[in-house]
């Protein structure tokens, strides 16, 4: 084949014709300089407005027990979505990290007198809680980094259960079965932050911060490298990336997110006991993350809302004693009929609608590409 033919053949491999006019590449280059790929859409504004105005039209119960709890749980599940969806490492020890943060806040801060408590100022306790929990997450990561797939699930589950039995049996530091009671947020600026509306806004602030942080992080070189490691660690290693360091760093970042969620969740409950970090809760966080969908940071929050609603209202829907069946069936239906939880249904639906509206195939495909 002649050289010109060969070149033409090679150019045909590129879906975008190589002989484009200069304006198109220049336009692409200009767009890439923005920090956020995805522009702010109408639906983002609507949802934000709804969330901000929520306490004004919802009852205190719905604000506190449903919304704030969903936000705190969603934040913890977000750490799992980040680690699992973007890092390819499903860790069941995220609730353990959250629990460690909660316990540290209780031990270093104020808690019920029959527990172990040092009574230091709340900001110091929270800071120590976050730092210690992140260190614990890094340690868990270091232990788990050489495993993959189901083995990661298992080793993190084992670490979680070991921690559960440690806090169950140890009375000198963790107060055993009783756990730490009366762990409350402080009164700051004249506002008691455990009241329904202030706590809701606190949880909303940190949930938004976590969400935006993850959305930003996955577009940075670190985040892209992490996704590359998820897809093909060997190739990344060949390219010169330190795969192990990246993974441990991912665990640490997820640990920070889980720790913040853990402090919020502990303040929400007002207590932290071995039951808060038991097998039941470890699996619940996984259920929440999978329920919502692991492809986008909004997934865990969706999953958390569904989970909290089910937990509270399944008992009203069906005979008092069969509500576990309802929860199990709903979960089963969502997992059986969707590839990726609720978000999977959403993407399938919007893909179907967009092709119906006659959008070009390239635009739809590009939308799906960047939805990851």
């Amino acid at each position, binding site marked *: 084949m002649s050289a010109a033919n060969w070149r033409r053949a090679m150019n045909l491999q590129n879906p975008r014709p190589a002989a484009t006019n200069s304006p198109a590449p220049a336009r692409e280059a200009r767009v890439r300089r923005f920090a956020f790929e995805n522009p702010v859409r109408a639906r983002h504004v609507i949802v934000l407005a709804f969330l901000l105005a929520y306490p004004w039209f919802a009852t205190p119960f719905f604000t506190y027990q449903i919304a704030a709890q969903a936000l705190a749980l969603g934040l913890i599940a977000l750490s799992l979505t980040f680690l699992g969806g973007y890092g390819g490492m*499903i860790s069941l020890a995220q609730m353990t990290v959250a629990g460690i943060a909660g316990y540290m806040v209780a031990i270093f801060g104020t808690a019920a007198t029959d527990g172990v408590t040092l009574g230091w100022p709340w900001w110091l306790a929270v800071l120590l809680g976050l730092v210690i929990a992140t260190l614990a997450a890094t340690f868990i990561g270091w*232990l*788990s980094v*050489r*495993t*993959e*797939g*189901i*083995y990661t*699930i*298992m*080793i993190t*589950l*084992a*670490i979680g*259960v*070991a921690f559960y*039995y*440690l806090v169950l*049996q*140890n009375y000198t530091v963790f107060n055993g079965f009783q756990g730490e009671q009366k762990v409350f947020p402080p009164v700051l600026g004249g506002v008691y932050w455990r009241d329904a509306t202030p706590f809701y806004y606190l949880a909303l602030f940190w949930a938004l911060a976590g969400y935006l942080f993850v959305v930003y992080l996955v577009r940075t070189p670190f985040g892209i490298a992490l996704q590359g490691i998820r897809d093909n660690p060997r190739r990344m290693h060949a390219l010169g990336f330190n795969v192990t360091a990246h993974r441990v760093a991912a665990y640490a970042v997820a640990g920070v997110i889980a720790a913040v969620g853990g402090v919020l969740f502990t303040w929400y409950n007002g207590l932290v006991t071995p039951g808060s970090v038991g*097998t039941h809760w470890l*699996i619940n966080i*996984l*259920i929440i993350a*999978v329920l919502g969908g692991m492809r986008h940071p909004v997934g865990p929050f969706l999953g958390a809302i569904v989970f909290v609603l089910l937990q509270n209202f399944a008992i009203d829907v069906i005979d008092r*004693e*069969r509500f*576990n*069946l309802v*929860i*199990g*069936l709903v*979960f*089963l239906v969502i*997992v*059986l009929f969707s*590839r990726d939880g609720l978000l999977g249904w959403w993407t399938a639906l919007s893909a179907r609608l967009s092709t119906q509206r006659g959008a070009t195939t390239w635009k739809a495909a590009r939308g799906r590409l960047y939805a990851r």
Partner: protein
Amino acid sequence: MTRAWKVFWTLVIAVPVVVLTAWGLQDNARLFVVTFLNGLTLASLYFIVASGFTLVFGLMRNVNLAHGSLYLLGGYLGFFTAQFSGSWLLALAAGFAAAALVGLAMQVSIFRFMPGQDLRQTMVTIGLSIVIADILMWAIGAQVHQMSPPPWLDGPIRNLPVIRAYSTYRFSLLPLGIVIGVALWLFLNRTRVGMMIRAGVDDRAMLAAAGVNVNLVFATTFAIGAGLAGLGGVIGAVELSMVPGEDTRLLLASLIVVIVGGMGSVVGAAIGAAIFGLAETYGLAYAPTYSVVFTFVILVLVLAFRPRGILGRPA
């Protein structure tokens, strides 16, 4: 691993074990020997349940977290069969068959349609376990169901040398575990079906290319794996009784045994069961407060240094 390292690790593990054994024997020989027997017999039960789990994972990469519910199902059905027929052996068969049928149904109707999606299959098994556990509690109630051993295994064996007496039924778990283990090994290594299963573990695509009905092999394997869980359930119903909540406990134990021993390896399951059973019973006997933490720490250490278990295959 070089020879020097092998010697080093052998010493690191063997020396403390020998020292502790010597101390234990001279401190309270009866307690030490009884605990050893307890550990081995408990390990037999764990091995029987875990072997099914590892078989299913080894071939189909399916982490069946509903394995515990199958244990519960087999146990309850075995209990009622024993009550109506009075025969413990019939109960064993009934427990095995019931769990095998349910496992077959799960594979044929659900898992067959999601090949390769490991996480999704795992989540489905979690959902199934919640649903099955609740249906069982609805149908059978939350009462404790304690099955009696058959008359020829009832009561203690007396006048033993160091330990004075030991439960006959518990002692019989050891030969039972060995028999099942050997039968499983023979099945996998000396029959055609076993050969197909082992080939499938190594390379599923080639097996299909060689003209074997892979779906049939999968279904058979899943049924056998589930049946083993049910069999374990009937055995456990006598030793540990049946109550809602047993499913998560035995599931966790199976997971640990299989992880320590290595997924997909029956011999690995035996080794893992021995390590876990002995660690648990010695912990409970000598340091009950932190015994469970201790067993999980062992698991974490094994995984940290051998990420695929002792005899494991790649995930």
